[in-house]
């Protein structure tokens, strides 16, 4: 099908974008990469009267790496962030997760910030942002505000963002030195939305001469309504990096609440999440460093 008619706004500056959103935001939508919004418009599940196309807004297309974070502007494509070597060097989790986001053709157009604003429970990057304890930079007619990732998501496809507000950028916080990460998921076809997925961050200390795990956290895809961080420290602390991580099951099961759908039952998703967590811990402790 085709979208219903709309008025297209193409602001060139952030001020213009904020002004036009202030006027039409309540009857309009921000258009970023369009890889989630345009399917919805094509199927006429939404018929906004205005689209505020931010693709030509100057200054939103940059990735900035600092000592504390990786800042990603609103029009940075998934593929650009995935291929950003400086970002990968300080936060490998970004590329590890982005390779699981859709197919290359979708990643070439879709934006990382857009997927966070969209807040799909099956999206990888909302969970990654939460796992890094990141921040969302919001701008609107009432000025700027910053929202901690854990407070941003309210439900599936629901965030604290007001209709006339725009996400200017997100900041993925860097982990402490010695933290190792991995991202794993299970999908029916490579690039499809995950049946379940997990990102892990594992703290490793080598103070005693041997590499020992001191803590671990996990964030999930497709098994929680909103991204949550499950602390696995109690089950893993003190163990050598070469362990098998059988003890994490209970903590994982308690931390998630998967829904059933045509692809998998709730029970199956639980088992999958636990198994993926074990494998991700193994991958992180044996391969990944940050």
């Amino acid at each position, binding site marked *: 099908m085709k979208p219903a008619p709309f008025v297209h706004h193409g602001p060139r500056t952030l001020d213009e974008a904020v002004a036009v959103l202030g006027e039409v935001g309540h009857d309009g939508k921000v258009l970023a990469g369009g890889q989630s919004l*345009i399917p919805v418009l*094509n199927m006429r599940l939404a018929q906004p009267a205005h689209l505020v196309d931010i693709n030509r807004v100057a200054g939103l297309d940059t990735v900035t790496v600092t000592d504390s974070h990786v800042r990603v502007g609103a029009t940075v494509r998934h593929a650009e962030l995935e291929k950003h070597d400086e970002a990968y060097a300080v936060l490998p989790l970004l590329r590890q997760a982005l390779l699981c986001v859709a197919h290359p053709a979708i990643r070439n157009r879709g934006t990382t910030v857009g997927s966070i604003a969209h807040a799909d429970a099956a999206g990888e990057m909302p969970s990654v942002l939460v796992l890094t304890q990141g921040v969302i930079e919001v701008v609107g007619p009432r000025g700027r505000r910053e929202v901690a990732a854990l407070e941003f998501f309210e439900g599936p496809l629901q965030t604290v963002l007001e209709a006339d507000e725009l996400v200017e950028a997100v900041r993925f916080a860097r982990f402490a030195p010695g933290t190792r990460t991995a991202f794993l998921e299970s999908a029916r076809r490579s690039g499809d939305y995950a049946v379940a997925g997990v990102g892990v961050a594992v703290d490793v200390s080598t103070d005693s001469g041997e590499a020992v795990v001191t803590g671990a956290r996990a964030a999930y895809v497709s098994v929680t309504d909103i991204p949550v961080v499950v602390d696995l420290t109690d089950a893993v602390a003190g163990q050598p990096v070469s362990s098998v991580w059988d003890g994490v099951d209970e903590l994982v099961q308690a931390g998630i609440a998967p829904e059933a759908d045509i692809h998998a039952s709730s029970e199956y998703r639980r088992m999958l999440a636990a198994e993926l967590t074990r494998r991700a811990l193994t991958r992180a402790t044996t391969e990944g460093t940050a």
Partner: protein
Amino acid sequence: MTDIDQGTTVDVTVTVNGIAHTRTVEPRRLLSDFIRHDLRLTGTHVGCEHGVCGACTVLVDGKPMRSCLMFAVSAEDMEITTVEGLGTQDAMGPVQQAFVECHGLQCGFCTPGFVTTITAFIEENPDPTSEEAREAISGNLCRCTGYQNICKAVLRAAEINRERATPTEGGDPA
């Protein structure tokens, strides 16, 4: 499609296969429809219109993207390449040639999307493994072939590309 909107149309100039085309369209005109209806370049196919099948994939500044998930107004100043821009019957591009040699198509509905996707892929990865070849086409659906010959065509296309890049005496592309 006739204009049945509130009367708002815009002039849009999009460069397709090296030629700048200007048309007056509604902002809601999908790039896929701009290419097929307004420019009559029907090589680009439309299957699902929600990004899943890959039939509508075109190259945007050299990168594969879904033309059903872009508006023509957003493609202004961009260089679009469709399957028509990747070769002719007499002088086929490497991917087209490989599809012929490997029997990579049956009905051909999915083929334009595969050809554009694979063209960009072998630019980025000139000597892929068969596993990488499979991964590269995982975002495109084909209901006929069972994919095996398409995987072979990816590897063969990369090979043809390398052969053509090696300077020989004649340098005849076909």
